């Protein structure tokens, strides 16, 4: 089973992602950037689902910290976010995210497709 790390501070959203993915993936969850950066070192996942609006360190800062580390430079990271204004997709992909999925997740297949595309690459 592939390992996916989820970084999400909102417990409702976290529970939803778990409900959607727990049957198919091994999940590890983090509620803050600091927690994630510490945990990811010892338990490297195959892919990360990263929220953007997080307290203290936001998703783009976590991305930058991860990309600076050679070990995570190539790791697939998907932005899972409620930032969904017209140009946001281009903005986040431009920053170095490999995928972009908006909240609310209207259809779980959108999330699965985004994950599977990156995992099979």
């Amino acid at each position: 089973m592939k390992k996916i790390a989820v970084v999400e501070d909102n417990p409702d959203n976290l529970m939803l992602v778990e409900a959607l993915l727990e049957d198919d993936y091994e999940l590890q969850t983090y509620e803050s950037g600091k927690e994630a950066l510490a945990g990811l070192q010892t338990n490297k996942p195959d892919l990360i689902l990263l929220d953007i609006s997080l307290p203290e360190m936001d998703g783009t800062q976590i991305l930058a910290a991860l990309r600076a580390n050679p070990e995570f430079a190539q790791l697939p990271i998907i932005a899972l976010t409620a930032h969904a204004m017209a140009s946001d997709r281009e903005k986040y992909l431009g920053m170095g995210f490999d995928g972009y999925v908006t909240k609310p997740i209207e259809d779980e297949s959108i999330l699965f497709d985004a994950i599977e595309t990156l995992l099979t690459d």
Partner: protein
Amino acid sequence: MTKNTAHLLIVDDHEMNRQVLGLRLEKKGYRITEAESGQQALNHIANEPPELVLLDIMMPEIDGYEILARIRQQYSPTEMPVIMVTAKDMSQDVVRALELGANDYVTKPVDFAVTLARIQSQLSLKHSEAALKESEERYRDLFENAHDLIQIVDADGKFLFVNQAWRETLGYIDEDLTDLTIWDIIDPRSKTQCIRAFKRLMGGTPSEQIETTFVNKSGQPVDVDGSVTLRKSNGKAIATRGIFRDITLQKAMMADLEESKKNAEDANQAKSQFLASMSHELRTPLNSVIGFSNVLLKNKNGHLDKKELSQLERIQRNGKHLLSLINDVLDLSKIEAGKMELELHSFDVKEFIDDVVSGSQPLIAKNKNVLEVVITPDLGEIYADETRLKQCLLNLLSNASKFTENGKIVLTVSFMKNNDWIQFEVRDTGIGMDQKTIDGLFQPFTQADTSTARKYGGTGLGLTISHHFCNMMGGDISVASTPGEGSVFTIAIPAQVSIDSSKNPNAS
């Protein structure tokens, strides 16, 4: 010059003398008046002042000196030149006459050529002095009445001359000027700047453009813009001449304008920020509403009965409807805030239409409609906002299938006007609309009536947004319909949308 027609007065008690001189001068073109006595001369001068007087000294009753003195009481030597006619070798007479204000003299017996030369010389002096005076008055008038501030300042910084506008703007009166120096009217913060300009003038620049600040008598700053020139003599400064324009109001207006612009930009920025936050905050709770209803609808454990599943399905459907509303309202807010920018690129029309058709299939199938696509092969590429155009077409196809059951929907794509424009026509065989409905169609929230909205769903914003998008691309959307027979919606946009047609290039 009216030299030769000048009016001369000859005063002499000897008729012979008068006539000899008078006749010869008349031949030269002068107009001559003769007076045989002092009294007569004074009368002539009072009645018709001549331009020059030839005055004999020795006369009974009122002599030449007396007449000369009377003339000088009223007229300056340049206003009315007097040439004395004296006896030969009487140098005392000459001295006295000159002291009394005579301009020149001739001695008896009169040499006509000399006399004529002296007359001409005096008249020419008189005319050039008059011209000089007039020119000086003209300049003084120009300076005094100029709207610009004009000042002449000597080497000690004292004011030699200031004009009316200067006095009015800076609030000083003539009496103040005695003790005033240039440093009293220069704002202390501008002092260094002015000294530098002065040094450059001393160094040889012909004039200095300077924008600086003066202070008026009550201590208020006056912003000025002008130029200063320097008069030097033997390398030493004699005076500076400055002409300045009061730009205080102009500067204040510019500052106001800058501030309003900044405020407007800040407000615009705040509005964009608000829309982005709003979008984020509304979407977050919907993630749970839609997401968990999706999870529960799978009924993994088989615990939910049919009725419960149907209720869940309503939560999910309404959650999605709320999401569409949020998306549409945000789209519209962005459009109305001028924050929506087009993303223009070239794309293949055929591929684009295939994409639109596959995207609309579920909608078409829902009411058992069929979709027919009429498209010329080899349409090539167009340059437009693909995403926005797709949103418009999906909206039209969605509307068509929503209001048509068991019918046919035809999408026709064609070029018009020498291939400069592309047209997308969506024709349905649905319920159609009356004129009143058509009239309000592109306004927000105007689905035919509330029962239509309940029956057919939709946010009521789709056509408003599509209309805006088409306009932004320099095109338009139009409609024709007959109740009970169906509707035709047509989108026409330039095949090459230009940046000019997209307003507001700064997106959030």
